[in-house]
């Protein structure tokens, strides 16, 4: 069993989920309440990773991080090393890759909160943030948990993006799915099977727990209003 790959994968998934909660929550909030006419544009961008082949996404993320792009150069001048084939680069790519899995359940849950409750909260003198923390979040906690678990499970299993952006560096970017691929290529079917079974069991258990916890939040895609 490749334990370093397992721990690396879990660490990656946790980091990605933490970033997604910070980044995805405001995006989901904005999407549920804006009346901006170009909102569909943002929705499409957020949902793009759902339909793109992971290699396409990985390819462009790789290009964007490379030393020829302004972003890559800016990061390199800061840290002294490039983003591709590092854990940080992998985390950034995974955040983009799993964004719709976090945003969509949260946006669906936020938009089901009665607008009158939000209005009542501001009538009672509460700021937007207090309204969010005291009213919106407790009433849509199911959607937030679903978003967290789905993006966690999704990050665990990603392959194409990891291969493009992270490569296959043991202990740095070699995740479980890459390890399985390696073992299968090396005809170590027993090893591949152990890892694959573990991943499948873990995914199945997390999904079962999530769905049993909030039985009303079944639809993951398409977003239901």
């Amino acid at each position, binding site marked *: 069993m490749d334990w370093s790959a397992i721990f690396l994968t879990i660490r990656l998934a946790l980091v990605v989920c933490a970033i997604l909660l910070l980044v995805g929550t405001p995006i989901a909030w904005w999407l549920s309440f804006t009346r901006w006419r170009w909102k569909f544009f943002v929705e499409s961008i957020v949902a793009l990773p759902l339909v793109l082949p992971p290699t396409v996404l990985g390819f462009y993320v790789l290009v964007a991080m490379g030393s020829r792009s302004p972003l890559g150069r800016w990061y390199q001048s800061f840290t002294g090393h490039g983003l591709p084939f590092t854990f940080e680069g992998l985390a950034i790519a995974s955040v983009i890759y799993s964004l719709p899995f976090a945003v969509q359940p949260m946006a669906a849950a936020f938009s089901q909160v*009665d607008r*009158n*409750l939000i*209005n*009542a*909260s*501001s*009538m*009672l*003198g*509460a*700021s937007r943030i*207090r309204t969010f923390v*005291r*009213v919106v979040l*407790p*009433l849509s906690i199911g959607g937030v948990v679903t978003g967290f678990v789905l993006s966690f499970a999704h990050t665990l299993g990603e392959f194409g993006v990891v291969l493009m952006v992270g490569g296959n560096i043991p202990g740095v970017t070699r995740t479980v799915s890459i390890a399985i691929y390696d073992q299968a290529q090396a005809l170590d079917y027993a090893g591949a099977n152990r890892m694959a079974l573990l991943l499948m069991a873990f995914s199945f258990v997390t999904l079962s727990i999530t769905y049993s916890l909030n039985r009303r939040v079944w639809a993951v895609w398409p977003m239901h209003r």
Partner: protein
Amino acid sequence: MATGKSLSVRITHRLSNRFALDAAFEASAGFTMVLGPSGGGKTTLLNCIAGFARPDTGCIALGARVLFDSDGRIDMPVAERRLGYVFQNLALFPHLTVAQNVQYGIANLPANERRARMMTMIESFRIAHLLARKPGEISGGERQRVALARSLVMNPAALLLDEPLTALDNATKSKILDDLRAWNTAHEIPILYVTHSPEETFALGERVVVLEGGRILAQGMPQHVLTTPRHETIAQVVGFENVFDATVRSIAETQGTMLCHLDGSATQLEVPLGHAEPGARVRIAIRAGDIIIASDQPHNLSARNSFQGRVLSIRREGVRAVVMIQAGAEFEVHLTPAAIDALRLEAGKQIWLVIKTYSCNLVEPSSR
């Protein structure tokens, strides 16, 4: 007459090509009823005052505090306006207990003061026994009390109520209103009470503003505005079931009356004198409960209008009967079930209608 505590509103707000709100009025301490049909702009008006909608032009002020002024570019955020607003669906927070709901707006106060304020409030509104429960676990009337307590515990400068008691029975309703009234004798804030019920308007209002099609049709004391409606919409709003177009035939100035001919029939009505010449078109409104039915031709009555008609239909609505009568024009008459039995009324029966002159109200045609 802007006193320290009165709410003054003068705004225009265009919502669409077909609907624009254009309202100016002053609400001093006490109940001001905002009466009108649905779609008349009542909720839009409250939303402008609360800050959920931004008027195109005008000014909203609470005493010396300006909440909105299109000229001075003032648009105070909702959270700073210090108003109470009880929504039609109450909008109690379903995941919080009654105690947490009531304290929601005073979270910035120290714990002991918060507690003290809440206790005063829950005593005023008799909800002390509900503190640990959630809104889903209490009755409609209790939820109403909690919503009022939650708004008033902040000591708002004015209270906005959007048809808050529609779903309640009369006994529950009047008890809650008594408590609200009692609270307000001590605090004396303006209370804007949106309703479509003339009964509530009569029972509560020191003043009434009649709003229809986004415009104020009339304002003043309910007794003046509602009992002698000068406008067809007001007539319908306050329950004049019978509204007829008519032509003035003759005027008896010394009697203070005039004779009118109902359009499309031979029926004539003597009505109170209005500003009209013979030949002028007028509109007459009569409450269904003000018309008397007799089974034989009545004699020696003070009532000046009596004429024959035929019962078209009788319909029971709870404890009253709605009788439709063809007498040149179609009249709606409300009677008690006992009266129906005593007169042996049934469809097709010939009867006499009796209407007092002063039960006939002249109203102006609606603008639309």
